[in-house]
């Protein structure tokens, strides 16, 4: 049983998070590296180019990579300090197995043999699909691809899904139904030449900081910026128009805009008629979405809505960018479609400085979702239920159609099935559901019910604490491979150092496990990331996400290659849809009508305040890496409750006061942070932390019926002032760690200066 082996405090003492404060050898060590390795930052979908300084097989620092065209040397604080995830005191270097005292270091062979035996036992008893895999898209394309193949052919389970389900999946669904393909339509260079930038539900300055410079450069040339978000985020500070709408009302705003575009005849009729379908249906769905109606639902003034529609309608060129703010909703896919409807109605896509894109959040959020660790997908963004698509993959994989499982259930549904006792075993890698899934308590209950859980990770994340076996895997810099950035640019990750101890790249572990499960024939030929990529090329060939013509050498020679790239002499495709050609069989785009529906949970007398959650610039996803890096913890050690002073006044709250926030799922106590930059009917909590400090204690397991993304961005809560003794002891511990990081400036000898 996967009960926690020790108290959380004991686990923290043994496995952290502890802070890495300084490079290997301390700040006094000789800073001259043996070599510089050109690679990319592991934190976020921007995938900035960076050079890692390597000395004695350790990453000791970084050097900006100014030639890489996307970021030209620029890095956010996570990129600057990313090197400190290596040589870390918490790093797992030996296999761990559970015994009566907790986790014990184990012989690799023994851990693997036990894992294989338990998998076989569970599958023999409960069927192949009773063993599930949950993985993540911070992994390379090669590892993502292999995870998909391992789950389907190594384990024979259909129940495989990934943490992109919590990230870009609503955007993917919206893009596929509109365009027949799931990728940002433009290279980022189109942003800087555009006239109007519409940013909706994207805290760009904190979640994709490098995009800021693209937007500022456009504005230097006269572009206008519209920002739609319940909070006035740093990117919105100087925006030309700020629309702080009610959480969960994005689709209402965009419907209202489409209504006005149609009413004012600001439609590109030539484009609509030549290149799209279903415009009439989309307009019919918004016929009642007058400015007054829109104002009622969004809480925005009529004049602001009309101004936004006028600017959007009259712009000559434009870029619409959105992110998790609109996607993390129970109508995430519809919100995305409502944005795309605005773009298609004005015909501004598929040309220079005209386009649209979701800003993918996770490190390999784009590539990871294309190559098959999504429950309904096969490599090349193929459909697992499509007979032709299956036949292509069966041929590449040398398996029969019967051997290839069909569509499984999604990430939250897998957790629900574990909780219900339908799924008995789990392989978890690159995913920390205890922090990142909604309704934390439910997730903890679910993991406690597993008969057997095996995890692969480099740190013992809060979810790995439930594992029976933990296999130490590789950091990004310990293996080579490719990722695909938010732009759709396939780039090369280069190996800087070897794995420490017994740790191995995830693909090696899966290949080993497949052999032990008697499925070696599908995996025997994989002896390197390159060998996996060569098969991925074949598997993706002919799919929408076609990597057939991409090689490692071509990527390095061209600083990345944009897919689709079907043949080796093909230059790649930075901008999609040129000439109004879309990826549906008839070449046309489709409007998708988005009739309004409210969020699954709305405020009421009992829970009268909207809660929305999100990221801060100093942390990445569930914080497994960034909560272990001194500088980042120093800047933002713990979560807080962002609240408008007018709302705070009603509850007698001053800055720093302890406030209890309660939803139908749970309650937590945080310090209040008073800001006028948030709607007064809404509060915000950053989500990167765990246990009593996890924002997801409050969020609900409400899913978008189309994409199955949870509604992290909209919950109803109530608050009350409480007493300082209600603060979690973890808060004090994190403040102590921040102090420790701040104080770490003692070891500098005088002679340095």
């Amino acid at each position, binding site marked *: 049983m996967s009960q926690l082996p020790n108290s959380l405090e004991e686990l923290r003492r043994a496995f952290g998070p502890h802070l890495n404060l*300084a490079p290997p050898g301390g*700040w006094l060590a000789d*800073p001259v590296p043996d070599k510089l390795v050109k690679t990319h930052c592991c934190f976020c979908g921007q995938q900035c180019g960076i050079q890692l300084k390597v000395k004695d097989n350790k990453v000791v620092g*970084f050097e*900006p990579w*100014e030639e890489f065209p996307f970021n030209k*040397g*620029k*890095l*956010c*604080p996570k*990129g*600057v*300090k990313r090197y400190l995830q290596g040589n870390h005191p918490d790093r797992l270097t030996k296999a761990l197995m559970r015994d009566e005292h907790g986790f014990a270091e184990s012989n690799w062979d023994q851990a693997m043999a036990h894992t294989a035996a338990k998998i076989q036992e569970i599958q023999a008893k409960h069927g192949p699909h009773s063993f599930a895999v949950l993985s993540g898209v911070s992994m390379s394309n090669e590892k993502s691809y292999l995870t998909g193949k391992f789950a389907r052919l190594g384990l024979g389970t259909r129940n495989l899904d990934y943490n992109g389900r919590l990230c870009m999946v609503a955007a993917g669904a919206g893009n596929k139904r509109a365009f027949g393909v799931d990728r940002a339509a433009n290279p980022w260079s189109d942003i800087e030449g555009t006239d109007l930038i519409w940013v909706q539900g994207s805290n760009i*300055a*904190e979640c994709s*900081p490098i995009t*800021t*410079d693209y937007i*500022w450069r456009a504005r*230097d040339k006269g572009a206008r910026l519209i920002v739609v978000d*319940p*909070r*006035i*985020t*740093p*990117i*919105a*500070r*100087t925006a030309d128009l*700020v*629309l*702080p709408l009610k959480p969960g009302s994005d689709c209402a705003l965009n419907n209202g805009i489409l209504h006005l575009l149609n009413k004012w005849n600001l439609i590109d009729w030539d484009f609509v008629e030549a290149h799209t379908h279903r415009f009439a249906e989309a307009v019919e769905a918004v016929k009642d979405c007058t400015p007054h109606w829109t104002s009622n639902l969004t*809480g*925005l*003034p*009529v004049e*602001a809505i009309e101004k936004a529609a006028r600017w959007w309608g009259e712009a000559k060129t434009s870029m619409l960018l959105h992110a998790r703010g609109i996607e993390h909703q129970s109508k995430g896919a519809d919100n995305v479609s409502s944005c795309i409807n605005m773009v298609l109605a004005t015909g501004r896509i598929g040309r220079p400085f005209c386009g649209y894109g979701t800003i993918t959040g996770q490190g390999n959020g784009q590539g990871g979702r294309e190559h098959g660790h999504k429950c309904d997908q096969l490599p090349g963004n193929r459909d697992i239920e499509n007979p032709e698509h299956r036949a292509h993959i069966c041929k590449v994989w040398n398996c029969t159609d019967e051997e290839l499982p069909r569509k499984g259930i999604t990430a939250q549904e897998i957790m629900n099935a574990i909780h219900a006792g339908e799924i008995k075993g789990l392989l978890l890698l690159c995913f920390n559901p205890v922090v990142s899934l909604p309704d934390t308590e439910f997730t903890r209950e679910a993991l406690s019910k597993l008969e057997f859980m095996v995890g692969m990770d480099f740190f013992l994340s809060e979810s790995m604490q439930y594992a029976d076996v933990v296999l130490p895997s590789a950091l990004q810099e310990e293996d080579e491979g490719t990722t695909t950035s938010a732009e759709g640019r396939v780039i090369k990750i280069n190996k800087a150092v070897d794995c420490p101890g017994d740790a191995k790249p995830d693909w090696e572990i899966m290949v080993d496990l497949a052999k032990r499960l008697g499925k070696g024939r599908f995996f025997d030929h994989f002896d390197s990331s390159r060998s996996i990529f060569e098969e991925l090329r074949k598997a993706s060939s002919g799919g929408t996400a076609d990597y057939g013509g991409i090689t490692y050498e071509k990527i390095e020679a061209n600083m990345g290659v944009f897919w689709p790239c079907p043949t080796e002499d093909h230059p790649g495709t930075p901008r999609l849809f040129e000439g109004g050609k879309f990826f549906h069989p008839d070449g046309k785009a489709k409007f998708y009508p988005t009739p309004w529906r409210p969020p699954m949970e709305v405020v009421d007398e009992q829970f009268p305040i909207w809660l929305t959650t999100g990221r801060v*610039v*100093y942390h990445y996803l569930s914080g497994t890496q960034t909560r272990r890096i001194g*500088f980042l913890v120093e*800047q933002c050690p713990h979560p807080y409750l962002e609240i*408008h002073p*007018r709302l705070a006044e009603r509850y007698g709250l001053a*800055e720093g006061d302890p406030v209890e926030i309660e939803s139908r799922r749970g309650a937590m106590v945080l310090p209040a*942070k008073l*800001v*006028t*930059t*948030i*709607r*007064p*009917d809404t509060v915000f909590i950053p989500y990167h932390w765990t246990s009593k400090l996890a924002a997801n204690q409050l969020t609900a397991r409400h899913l978008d019926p189309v994409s199955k993304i949870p509604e992290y961005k909209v919950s109803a809560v109530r608050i009350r002032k409480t007493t300082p003794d209600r603060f979690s002891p973890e808060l004090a511990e994190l403040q102590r760690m921040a102090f420790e990081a701040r104080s770490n*400036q*003692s*070891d*500098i000898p*005088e002679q*340095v*200066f």
Partner: protein
Amino acid sequence: MPLVNEEYGFFIDPQRCIGCRACVGACAECGTHRGRSMIHLDEMDRLASTQTVPTVCMHCEDPICAQVCPADAIKRSEDGVVHSSQKPRCIGCQNCELSCPFGVPIVFSGLEQMLKCDLCYDRTSEGHRPMCATVCPSQALLYVPKTQIESLRKNKPLREFTIGSLHVKTRNAVMVPDDDVPLHLDAALLIAGGF
């Protein structure tokens, strides 16, 4: 080619700053700084705005820090760069820290020496831009040939400041903000129906 010369200018534009502190973190990573950052980044008034302001040394033409140094430990080189105090001379008296109109120098406890931004002398002398201006995601810190600034930015660079009774001319420039930048952002004023 060294990038510290008359041709290159350092331009600071707080309007673009997103407060991410990449500059602060990167400054500490510079080869000679060894974990100490010489950059200050301040929230102006987080209650009212997300405005943040990075402060790096302005490299004054006649640096006040050097004028008030009783040990004559602070030197300005011919290329206009004002350097950290010279260790053998610095007595850690903090006169420089107290007198700088921009609040730049830091006398580090334990070291008893003033250290400050030297425009990344080690990097610029080898043809690299200063670390902070290289990494800054919003390019609120910008290091380019001075002749390019007009084509790159619509705001004007300012190199002369009157602070109290002091009139200061500097090597580095601050970009003059737009007239209409709001200092107080209030979502309550942008929504319908009041609260």
